[in-house]
C-alpha cells in the first residue's frame, strides 16, 4: 500500500509489479489523462501542486479505507505534480484482489476519494491565453 507523488512520468507497469500475488485473480487500474478540454474551454497544458505532507497522509488513509471496506490484496496510487501536457498521465490507481468485483469497487473508491479529499490543486492554461486554478476561480 503506497500513496506517492511523482515529478516524472508515471510507470504503471512497474508499479503493478508490487501489487501482484499468486493469490490474486483480478487487477483493476485507473489512469487519469490530461484532456484537451474542460467545461467548454480548450486546455493547452496544466500544473499540479500538492501540499505533499498532508496529501500523503490523506492518500494513505484512503488506501487503508479501501483495504478495510473491500476484499482486496493491495492498492497503490501515484499522482503527478508539476507541469503536464495534453495526454500525460496525471494520476494512476492500481488494485489487486482475489476477485474482480472487489478490485473494481476499491479502484473506483480510491480515485473518487482522492479527487475530493486530497490537497492537490490544478491550474489549467487555456488556448486563449487565460489560466486558472480549477474550483477556486471564476
Amino acid at each position, binding site marked *: 500500500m503506497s500513496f506517492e507523488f511523482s515529478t516524472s512520468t508515471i510507470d504503471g507497469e512497474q508499479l503493478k509489479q508490487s501489487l501482484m500475488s499468486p493469490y490474486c485473480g483480478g487487477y483493476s487500474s485507473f489512469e*487519469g489523462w490530461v484532456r484537451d478540454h474542460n467545461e467548454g474551454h480548450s486546455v493547452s497544458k496544466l500544473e*499540479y*501542486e*500538492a*501540499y505533499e*505532507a*498532508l496529501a500523503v*497522509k*490523506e492518500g494513505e488513509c484512503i488506501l487503508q479505507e479501501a483495504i478495510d471496506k473491500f476484499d482486496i490484496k493491495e492498492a497503490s496510487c501515484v*499522482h503527478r505534480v508539476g507541469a503536464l501536457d495534453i495526454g500525460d498521465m*496525471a*494520476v494512476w490507481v492500481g488494485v489487486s484482489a482475489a476477485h474482480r468485483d472487489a478490485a473494481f469497487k476499491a479502484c473506483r473508491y480510491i*480515485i473518487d476519494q*482522492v*479527487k*475530493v*479529499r*486530497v*490537497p*492537490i*490543486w*490544478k*491550474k489549467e492554461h487555456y488556448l486563449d491565453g487565460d489560466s486558472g*486554478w*480549477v*474550483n*477556486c*476561480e471564476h
Partner: protein
Amino acid sequence: MKSIKIEYYALFREQAGLSNEEIQTDAQNVDALYKELKSRHGFSMCSTQLRVAVNEEFKDWSSDLEDGDSIVFIPPVAGG
C-alpha cells in the same frame, strides 16, 4: 503575541506572492488568523470555501491558535 508559520499553496501562493511566512499575531483561533491574512494579502476566497490544516492535520476553523503552530489553508482540491 504568537509566532505562527503559514505555508501558501496554489491560488494562495499566487495571491500572497509568498510560499510561506512566519508572522506575529494575536488571533485567538484559526478563523481569526485567516481573516487577518485575507485582509493583508487580499485573498479572494472565504473560509467557508476552505479547509485548514494545523501542524499537518485537518482541523476545525474554531481551533485555538498556539504559539509555534504551522498553518496551511486548503482551497477546493482538484486532483485526478
